[in-house]
């Protein structure tokens, strides 16, 4: 072994040191992330709730509404504790606490890889959807925004959930459970119908029967959410 090689060998740090360095950096990183996560989680949850509520306030324009989250537990829907991140529905009540509708969230596969995430406001007595808003969409700009505009939006003023929702060509809607496609954006329209059927299959069997809804428990957070 030449002198140079011996010197090179001496410079090499031991495997132990390599492992220890990475472990320490990893541990510090984990601790920092845990601290930031704990600190930001309540704010993020509040933002998410406020965002959903804002969309519901938009749908029920002109009415004062309050909402609370319901989650499935032991075969029925119960009021979620604040900060509970498990999937559920948003029960919408009038200002004096009368049940009005449910906000159902569902995803549909569209043109973009992430799909579209939508909020449907569902009236359980008439069994119709009374409004729809996009929560998250990476669809092609221009096509995606058409989801939120007329004439597509008018499909969701009284869309029946009694039967599976069906997509038809633009202008061919003849039944309450049919949706007129956005002309030129069939994939996006299909994603919306897909999401509608997903929430219909998932939540309709679980929603409380009209008359047996859990009572409203929180103070009006609609006004807080708008602040």
């Amino acid at each position, binding site marked *: 072994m030449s002198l140079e090689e011996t010197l090179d060998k001496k410079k090499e740090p031991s495997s132990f040191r390599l492992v220890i360095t990475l472990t320490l950096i990893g541990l510090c990183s984990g601790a920092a992330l845990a601290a930031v996560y704990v600190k930001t989680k309540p704010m993020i949850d509040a933002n998410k709730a406020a965002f959903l509520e804002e969309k519901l306030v938009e749908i029920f324009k002109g009415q004062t509404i309050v909402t609370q989250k319901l989650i499935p537990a032991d075969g029925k829907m119960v009021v979620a504790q604040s900060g509970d991140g498990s999937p559920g529905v948003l029960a919408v009540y009038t200002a004096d606490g009368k049940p009005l509708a449910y906000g159902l969230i569902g995803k549909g596969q569209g043109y973009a890889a992430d799909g579209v995430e939508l909020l449907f406001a569902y009236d359980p007595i008439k069994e119709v959807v009374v409004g729809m808003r996009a929560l998250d969409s990476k669809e092609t*700009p221009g096509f995606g925004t058409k989801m939120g505009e007329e004439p597509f939006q008018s499909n969701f003023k009284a869309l029946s959930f009694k039967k599976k929702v069906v997509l038809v060509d633009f202008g061919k809607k003849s039944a309450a459970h049919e949706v007129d496609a956005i002309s030129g954006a069939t994939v996006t329209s299909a994603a919306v119908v897909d999401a509608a059927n997903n929430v219909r299959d998932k939540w309709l069997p679980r929603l409380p029967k009209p008359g047996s809804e859990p009572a409203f428990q929180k103070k009006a957070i609609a006004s807080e959410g708008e602040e």
Partner: protein
Amino acid sequence: MLEEQGQNYAEFIKGLWKENPVFVQVLGMCPMLAVTTSAVNALAMGGATLFVLVGSSLFVSLLRKYIPKQVRISAYIIIIATFVTVADLVLKAVAFKVHKELGAFIDLIVVNCLILGRQEAFASRNGVKAALSDALGMAFGFAIALFCLGAVREIFGAGQLFGVSLFGDSFQPWQIMLLPPGGFIMLGLILLFFNQMKARKEARLQLAQEGPVKS
């Protein structure tokens, strides 16, 4: 002391213009093209990148003598990923709607070659002050580039800037500007402008070297 300050200032300035990460080094193209559909998105992305670049440069520079070179890239990636996750969570907590617009691109800052490139090329070889100056310069340079592209695309693609309508209702937005091709076209034009400037400067320098032409 003064010399050191001058040096740091030079490190800062070079990222803004002479070695601008986007216009000159052509780094970080993925976020550059993907999120610059509006000026606000561009600024938010620029801010998040600034936070990650400055934070990770600080730590890489501080720890440069303790991180063995065999594991340096893994160590840098852990440091960068930590700052990216913090930026992601904080943005979600303070600017939820902007975060929704930027989507996965905040997470993808981890793989922005500008960040890892600065750690490897500069922060791991220089002191804290120099590393911070370099990181700030590069990050501001990146943010300025994002903002230029974002503002132009918003003006033409939506007829507005920072959400304020500029041309009234009669303006027909150029939809293509908000789509990826619009990003490529604008970026191409901006790079053309920078290359043109560089070529002119070089030509002037060459002329100056050759001395005045005698007639």
